[in-house]
């Protein structure tokens, strides 16, 4: 690719990304009431999307090969346990990550 072609390619990626971010705000202008169905989605979608993102993070974990997802499962249990116990976001995240690093570097 020439530099011009590279710039065009990167430009397309920027344009695509910005479209997905700005479209909802352009399609549903302020002042006009947002359709009821869209307001419903705005209310219920986040919980589902966060669920999707958790699955997305784990998408490359294989239950039938390598460490069989055991380090991931154990570390998530640590995250959930810490969070139920102290409900300190940073503590839960740091605890789970350190647990995972120790598991994949020393155990598995």
């Amino acid at each position: 690719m020439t530099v011009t072609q590279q710039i065009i390619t990167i430009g397309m990626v920027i344009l695509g990304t910005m479209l997905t971010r700005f479209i909802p705000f352009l399609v549903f202008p302020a002042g006009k009431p947002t359709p009821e169905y869209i307001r419903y989605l705005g209310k219920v979608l986040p919980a589902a999307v966060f669920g999707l993102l958790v699955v997305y993070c784990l998408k490359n974990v294989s239950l039938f090969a390598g460490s069989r997802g055991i380090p991931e499962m154990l570390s998530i249990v640590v995250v959930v346990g810490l969070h139920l116990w102290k409900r300190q976001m940073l503590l839960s995240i740091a605890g789970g990550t350190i647990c995972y690093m120790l598991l994949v570097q020393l155990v598995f």
Partner: protein
Amino acid sequence: MSRKMKLLSAMKAAFPHTIPIFAGFWFLGMTYGIYMNVSGFSFWYPMLMSLTIFAGSMEFVAVNLLLGAFNPLQAFAMTLMINARHLFYGISMLDKYRGNGLKDIYLIFGMCDESFSINYTADIPEGIDKGWFMFFVTLFNHFYWFFGATLGGIFGSLIHFNTEGLDFVMTAMFVVIFMEQWMKEKNHVSAFVGIGVSLLCLIAFGAENFIIPAMVGILGVLTLVKNPLQAEIGRVGER
């Protein structure tokens, strides 16, 4: 409160929320910078791309696009597909990302997974300006990513210590955010739909292709159960 004080207090309130992202973006950004470095691009590429695209997974894909044959339409279509989840974020943020003046444009521009997650779930303390709080969350995240990507691009070949497993920080963060959202809601149908449909699609379509079917499936199921679910949420809310 003077304008300077208002900015400073919003910045101080926003920073702790972004610390987990600092760890994650530093690492992923570096990884991305190193990846570009070893793919033969100078540090200008990760530096400018992290600044202008600011969508992590897409930037990794963009490296492959740049290494392949010139095909701008395909680059455009792939971007739309990979980033389609932002449409969901936007719909959820229609109210929050409005009425903050010019900051709105930057907030929407910087609406990556992590900025959205924090700004959607954070309980912003009383007396802190919401617009500036969300602005600083976005700005800090943007800076971490830019910083990591640029450093990775410059010093890519010089790093030698065992960071294996550090990327789990992202998983841990989304698990915590999912739990926070769970504890905030009395009705968990949507959370179950999200996990269930995503898992089914992951099994059916595989790791590389499951996102789009999962999103379509989530939309479909939530649309099907709209009337009973809305009645249930309304009933619980009234108690």
